[in-house]
């Protein structure tokens, strides 16, 4: 099963984190992801959520707003992909992610397109 692993950061906790160690951990984590095989990939890191712009289109009218989509303490910060047979293994990969300590990692199975 392929999973998208969605990282939600708590900005305060992240700011207090030992930065150098965190990014060293991330380098190691991304290397482990790369080594794990096809279906694994380090995703992308996003800029802080306060720089987000949200667009909605309702009845032909476009609405553009500043700030993140959800007003929560933990904000979407990045993602990566894994391909493992069981949820247990997915949990393990979430646990390995250095961001798990500074927020949360959401595990979302990917809907596979069935050949038609």
């Amino acid at each position, binding site marked *: 099963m392929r999973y998208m692993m969605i990282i939600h950061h708590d900005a305060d906790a992240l700011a207090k984190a030992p930065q150098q160690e965190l990014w*060293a*951990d991330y*380098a*190691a*984590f*991304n*290397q*482990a*992801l790369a*080594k*794990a*095989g096809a279906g694994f990939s380090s995703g992308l890191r996003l800029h802080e959520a306060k720089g987000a712009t949200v667009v909605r289109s309702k009845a032909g009218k476009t609405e553009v707003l500043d700030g993140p989509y959800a007003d929560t303490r933990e904000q979407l910060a990045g993602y990566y992909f894994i391909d493992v047979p*069981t*949820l*247990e293994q997915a*949990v*393990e990969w979430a*646990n*390995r992610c250095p961001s798990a300590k500074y927020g949360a990692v959401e595990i979302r199975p990917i809907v596979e397109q069935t050949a038609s």
Partner: protein
Amino acid sequence: MTADARQAAEQVARDSYGRLLAFLAARTRDVAGAEDALAEAFASALKSWPETGVPANPDAWLLTVARRRQTDTIRRRQTRVAGEEHIQLMSEEIEAASASPDVIPDRRLALMFACAHPDVEAGMRAPLILQTILGMTAVDIAAAFLIPPATMGQRLVRAKARIRDNGIPFAIPEREDLAARLDAVLEAIYAAYAKGWTELGDTSADRMADEAIWLGRLVVSLLPEEPEAKGMLALMLYAEARREARRDPTGAYVPLESQDITLWDEPQILAAESLLHHANAAGPTGRYQIEAAIQSAHIARCVSGKNNWQSVVALYDVLLALTQSPVVTLNRAAALAETLGPKAALASLDSIADDKRMADYQPYWAARGHLAARAGRKEDAHEALTLAIGLSTDDAVRHYLMAQRVRLQDG
């Protein structure tokens, strides 16, 4: 109540739970139904005992109430004559049991064999045993196995339905099948123990280790003739004896060779030694006995200071022939580094280098990094240690590996 008395009381309750559940579920094979009946019995005990006092034989009291519940349920479901006969049989059995409560037959072993039956998904055997024998909740089990509680709950329900629908027997297998089937029971218990071992300093996991040891003791007491059961219990006790020494006062990870042996729990080691001695009386016969013997050798070396790596490698050779497991190849390499040197140890890993299971197996990369560093292959060591760091889920281990990687640049 003193801590000891409370522990003793808990022990009795725990002992009763599995015993009563095993007895209730044995005939119907309906584990979930038996759990419901027993839960109701415990609930009515909580209601009536404060008023009427605790009955002389609490087990018999609980059993009678639970059995009544159970027969009511069956009566509601099936009114056929066959059902009535079944109920008749059950009632006679229960009357006999409550008349002489000291001889409530102990069917926990049969229940464990049902839980570890080949038809039950391998990953669910340990959780099922923890729930049925110890009465652990799905939430507690889920916490130790790092699974969402609702998912664990659903899987437990499915596994119980499987036992009922497939008519999995509640029986101790015949002699010729016993070894293989017992292996599944021991594997499930050991899996529970491993959950409590690998996660350093995690409280739900610590508790899981205690529960697994309790189950190990139970199996040994119910199957006193089986050397592998003793071997597995010895293996768990050896590991448990060193629990305190695995961390230094700052919480950092301490590998075996650097551990302070005064922190080891001597009574546990002696208990393990004695179990292993009894198990091996007729020569070692299985993987747990050999793994326990390896632990015994490690402890002897650390205590006496006398090099015995040669015999450790020899034990690993036997274990490898028995299991063909890449994990054994990996552990053997660490011992081989002490006899033939790190280069030979690295070469011995070539046979499992392409094994897909090793790609994200943290101990593999940690060992590779460690061996490459000792062999002076700095680049290989750096890469392997980096992967091991990336695959670690434990901070203490991660920091230990980072320090190793830093030393690479210094040395």
